């Protein structure tokens, strides 16, 4: 699980990006992080996979604490997390298969296991038929599925997604979101930043809303919205 305790993040050039952020994500939970652009969503996610360190406070992710970790702990932690971004971040010169296999190769998976595992991941995201296609030959939704397959390669306990549907049309967005639900249903926690309020509202998942670097609303903490449909606080923004 993921726990933020009074986290502050200061950037030298832009000042305070996060102020006194505290929340907890439990095992197997599905959590949205919403808020306007520049609110600090990406910064929160970066802190989760230790791409950034808090200036103050503590981030603890699956046993690795920002207060006590060593450099060597970071790769270990990242193997337990899957990360996807708005811009997919695929290797353009490699086909779908190779992009997924890459995550296994560079984490030392025995080569005999890589092939079957890649096939299983591609079928999980519904891309078995496109294994030998290059990223540029795929639609946005398909590219994001490749990125998700890669993120799932090392069997993560949590999937961290920074506006994964930001570049996708309505249909593709729904497809990716359904994929996330399926992944979540099999026990993987999902932490997803988005400003797609329709999606958030319809899902009825827990929502943490940030604005100007502060948590202004957490449906779990405020007690209530986990299963109900809409959240009025979300509506007031954007």
């Amino acid at each position, binding site marked *: 699980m993921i726990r933020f305790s009074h986290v502050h993040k200061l950037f030298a050039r832009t000042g305070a990006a996060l102020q006194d952020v505290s929340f907890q994500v439990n095992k197997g939970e599905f959590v949205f992080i919403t808020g306007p652009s520049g609110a600090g969503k990406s910064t929160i996610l970066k802190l989760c*996979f230790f791409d950034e360190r808090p200036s103050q406070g503590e981030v603890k992710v699956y046993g690795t604490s920002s207060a006590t970790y060593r*450099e*060597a702990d970071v*790769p*270990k*932690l*990242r*193997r*337990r997390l899957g*990360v996807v971004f708005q811009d997919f*971040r695929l*290797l353009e010169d490699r086909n779908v298969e190779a992009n997924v296999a*890459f*995550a296994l*190769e*560079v*984490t*030392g998976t025995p080569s005999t296991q890589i092939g079957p595992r890649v096939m299983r991941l591609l079928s999980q995201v519904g891309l078995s038929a496109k294994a030998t296609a290059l990223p540029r030959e795929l639609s946005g939704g398909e590219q994001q599925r490749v990125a998700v397959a*890669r*993120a799932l*390669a*090392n069997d993560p306990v949590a999937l961290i997604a920074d506006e994964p549907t930001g570049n996708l049309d309505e249909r593709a967005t729904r497809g990716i979101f359904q994929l996330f639900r399926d992944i979540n249903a099999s026990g993987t926690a999902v932490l997803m930043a988005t400003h797609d309020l329709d999606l958030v509202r319809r899902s009825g998942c827990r929502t943490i809303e940030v604005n100007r670097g502060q948590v202004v609303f957490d449906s779990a903490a405020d007690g209530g919205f986990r299963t109900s449909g809409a959240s009025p606080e979300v509506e007031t923004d954007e």
Partner: protein
Amino acid sequence: MRLAIREALLAFRRAPMLSALSITTIAFSLFAFGLFGLVALNIRNALRTVEDRVEIRAFIADGTGTEATAAALGDIGAFPEAASVRLVTQTQALDRARRELGEFSDVFEEGILPASIEVRLKPGFRDPATVRAVAKRIEVYDFIDDIRFGEEWVEKLHRLRNIATLAGVALGLTFAIVAIIIIGSTIRMAVMARSREISIMRLVGATNGFIRAPFLIEGFLKGTLGGMLALVLAWVALAVINRFVVQASFFEPWMEAGGVLAGASIGLVGSALSVGRHLRRV
């Protein structure tokens, strides 16, 4: 590991010019070192044979009594540096001169050549400084007219060897530094070319060692190739010298191995010095 080696080899293909440049500068570094090393080596060999023949000749003034000479012979024989001491009488000196000069033998008359004391030194006491010191101690006998010990050219050879060694080290080091700088910039380019891959590697949890390995292997391979190239260059240089100048000898096998190893180290150090710095920026 296999992946790392594959990546390292790929780097040669990505930047063939820079790779060739790094290999060549490493090779020049070691070649410069090796060439002067060869000179030093051969001078040392020459010195060894010359030093085997190092002897001090103290010429005895005419009319010196045999007792004084004998006493001096005993004293000198007791020097810790002395291997052997011998008296060459006037007659013996003449005989030797006649033998050595053959047909001109009758130019010498009885008594024209002085008697002398010949001192050979033990191995390890044949360097110019010791020889001179021993000669000084022999010179104190007042019946010694003149003393010779081939000082000039022994000293010259020694000086030449030192200069060759120094020049080799200085030039070799300069090239080594240039090689390290070039390797550094090759790595910067390689890191930039692969920055996307590297950031994804980090994202999915590749270790730092794993990310570095291809760059270190690349440096090591370049260094090894540079070392081998240097060896070939030195060998060609030697062949030319042998043919047109003097018969010279080549390195011992362990020195050759050392040269290649030195190349590998330059490559490895060059990579290690810069890879961390450049990776941090990705």
